[in-house]
């Protein structure tokens, strides 16, 4: 997410055509410089994940996932008869550095594709999930606490949610919005405020967009102050198996999280993947999570597209991508849409005592990713379509590419 912002900033420049953000949690970039790579007998794949800095917690695992996937593909005989070779670079959680390193991978290392970024599709499809929440929480929630880390993603999400809630007739005083700095560790006051806000006679739920690190002390404080899911459920959009690994989850039974994938989902593909992943990392306790699944799908789609056009030429691969399908790990099949987003099911899971999630609700079908929210004034006129329009931010009103909504 953090990263895709900076890539997307480049994408929105109309002439930067060879940049492409396929928003499934992977940014996918390639260049025309690929012809030189063809002459060699390996295909180079760039891996762009922070191995140091604040995002390292979430992203190091994703680097391992990519190495694992490349390893698996090579065991199957590689791609187009060539072996894949991973080129790992470390953008050190420094956002401008991501763009610089991506450029370096493409121009210097001449990679065929770059896999990177850390995000999740459930964030893109926050609204459909949110619409269902009221029924999932099993009572009509009247008051909402929107708690998030103070940066662009939570602020955008909360803006969308607030607009949606107000459209649904929730009064302004029944919405409490709270932002905290990155890595906030003293949650006493905020949890006490949530408790107070929640005990005024109306059913209350918390939607948390708190980022990575800060979740652990937040959940610890919830457990300590005895905020139980039966009284005030907390729904998280950024807490997964990996974040719960550092926590005693017993006091957190029943709090919720929304993702496109949970490790606990039973399907033949998922069971096989978990077993292979544990064998590859030689760690029987290693967990899998949603961003990893995003990589699995994204990588499989790239491989398919390359095989279809029999070339790693990025322009051809990009044109072949929309419509490509790949099995996801939850038993369905995901499709690449013309806006370069991927269809996936959305699940809501309850935290169990062992740090895993029990699925309590899922979307009946696959949810198409929407690049621009229909609920915000600045973006509801925008549309992304790389097949017909060849544009990532086409304005439906002014009929121009690259225009902000008026």
């Amino acid at each position, binding site marked *: 997410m953090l990263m895709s912002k900076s890539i997307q900033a480049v994408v929105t420049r109309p002439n930067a055509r060879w940049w492409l953000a396929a928003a499934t949690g992977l940014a996918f970039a390639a260049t025309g410089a690929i012809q030189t790579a063809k002459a060699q007998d390996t295909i180079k794949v760039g891996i762009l994940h922070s*191995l*140091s*800095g*604040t995002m*390292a*917690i979430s992203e*190091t*695992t994703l680097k391992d996932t990519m190495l694992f996937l490349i390893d698996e593909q090579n065991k199957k005989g590689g791609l187009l008869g060539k072996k894949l070779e991973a080129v790992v670079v470390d953008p050190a959680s420094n956002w401008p550095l991501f763009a610089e390193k991506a450029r370096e991978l493409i121009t210097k290392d001449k990679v065929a594709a770059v896999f990177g970024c850390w995000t999740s599709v459930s964030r893109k499809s926050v609204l459909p999930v949110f619409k269902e929440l009221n029924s999932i*929480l*099993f*009572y009509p929630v009247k008051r909402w606490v929107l708690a998030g880390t*103070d940066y662009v993603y939570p602020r955008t999400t909360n803006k969308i949610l607030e607009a949606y809630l107000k459209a649904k007739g929730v009064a302004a005083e029944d919405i409490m919005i*709270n*932002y*905290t*700095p990155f*890595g*906030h*560790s*003293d949650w*006493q*006051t*905020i949890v*006490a*405020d949530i*408790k*107070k806000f929640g*005990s*005024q*006679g*109306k059913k209350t739920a918390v939607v948390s967009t708190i980022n990575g*690190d800060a979740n*652990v*002390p937040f959940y*610890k*404080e919830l457990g*300590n*102050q*005895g905020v139980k*899911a*039966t*009284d005030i*459920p907390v729904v998280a959009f950024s807490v997964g198996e*990996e*974040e719960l*690994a*550092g*926590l*005693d989850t017993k006091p957190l*039974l*029943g709090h919720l999280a929304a993702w496109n994938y949970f490790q606990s989902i039973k399907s033949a593909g998922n069971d096989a993947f978990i077993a292979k992943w544990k064998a590859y990392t030689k760690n029987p306790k290693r967990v899998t999570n949603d961003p990893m699944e995003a990589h699995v799908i994204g990588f499989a789609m790239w491989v398919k597209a390359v095989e279809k056009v029999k070339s790693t030429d990025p322009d051809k691969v990009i044109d072949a991508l929309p419509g490509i399908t790949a099995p996801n790990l939850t038993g369905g099949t995901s499709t690449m849409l013309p806006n370069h987003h991927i269809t996936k099911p959305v699940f809501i899971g*309850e935290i169990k*005592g062992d740090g895993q999630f*029990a699925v*309590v609700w899922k979307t009946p079908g696959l949810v198409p990713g929407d690049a621009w929210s229909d609920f915000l004034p600045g973006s509801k006129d925008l549309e992304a379509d790389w097949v017909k329009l060849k544009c990532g931010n086409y304005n439906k009103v002014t009929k121009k590419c690259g225009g902000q909504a008026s």
Partner: protein
Amino acid sequence: MRGFNGLLIALALAFIALVSVTLARAQSPGDVLAKFTTDDFSDTAEAVEALAASGDKMAAPIIFALQDGRLLFDAKSKTVFIKDASGAILDAATGQPVTAAPAELETVGINNRLRRAIEAALGTLTLLAPEPQKRLEAALAVYKSRDEKALPALDTAIAKETNANIKRALLEARAAVIVLSADAPEAARLDAVGVIRARGDQEALSLLSSLPADAPPALAKAAASAIKAIQGQLEIWNGVQNAWYGLSLGSVLLLAAIGLAITFGVMGIINMAHGEMVMIGAYVTFMVQEVIRTRYPGLFDYSLLMAVPLAFLVAGAIGIAIERGIIRFLYGRPLETLLATWGLSLILQQAVRTAFGSSNKEVGAPSWMSGAFEVGHLNITYGRLWIICFTLIVFVALLAMLRFTRLGLEMRAVTQNRAMAAAMGIRTARIDALTFGLGSGIAGIAGVALSQIDNVSPNLGQGYIIDSFMVVVFGGVGNLWGTLVGAFTLGIANKFLEPYAGAVLGKIAILVLIILFIQKRPRGMFALKGRAVEA
């Protein structure tokens, strides 16, 4: 009149109870149990309700098992089993052990709605349990569920109860049911408002504000005045709570800064790797707990006590190595010290990341540090309380060490006048190493405590380094008392600002205030007087 009304209600309740019992009877126990085997949340909810109303002696054990995830079922034969604490399988219908249980048993799943239904059902079922703790929990559960069907059981329980605390909880539960019951006589409801008002906490407020709008005017008026009274009282408690949070935050700041007060404050070394010493202390705690978990699970409650000396030794040893290896070549060159220790902090972080992986490590809380208790309306968590005590102990021990031991004396001598101390025969180089080791060791101890409230990851230290410098500079460089006062001042100021300004703005405001303060008093609150070495 009142008596007549009471009679009517008793009759009505008896009728309701009778109807629900006959309804439940209409379904045979087998039918009820079979509902669990569909593993459908609404079927399970119906089964729980039917069981609770049935009066069956197996009802409570079955519902308990469901709550703990010990209720199993076999989908084929539609039979339900309970797994007891020892792992034995019992038949849920009879409670007898089963010799040949089906091989593939599945657990009956529950969700939040069911958890609430279960708590409510158990509340009614266990009001007369022999264990006082269970009765208290039952009373609290009924208070929350406000289930009218629990009234007869409540009345029996109140008549029988001897424990004053539980009796009060039972009476409050009864009042909660009656206040919201539209059928209850107005006088009883007014009495109930009085009981709730005496309770006077957030829950009472929540109950009274959920009174429906069509309540009789007298009742609404009583409730409104009760709400006002409770709110006024809670306002005061709010202030007390903020002060407590401030103390707690202050103690964390003090703990993180106290080691820095030695290395930066006393020795004048700008040690950017201070946070990493804290992080190393936290990882030592994690390793101690890992060993205990695998080898001696019975000792888990003592794991933190064992980790304290170990963390001190490990972090202290690393500190001495850093001083001997790097810092002693850089004395008097603050800019280079800063850069060298900063680089070192990155190396240490990456080393830990390579050795342990980047994911968070779970450090458990011993039982004596989990949970909370209430003083009046102040909610105090044991973990925070212990951290405050621990901080004060460390602080006093450090003061005593500097004041009363030979090492402390020599340390003070070297800081006050290095040349003179050397002339008196003190080996200043050795003292420098030991002082730096002491500061680092104390940072390691801080890591043990911080592992309880923060996440144990390679980045743990980064979050504390700036706060630590802030505390030391604000309190006055070179003065331990200044660090103490500085930490608590910043903690309390932060917590009183936070409710009004929010966490982000509160932090900025504190930073601005400190900058302004430093302009006025560049040497902090308690500046050292006299001839300091480097001055």
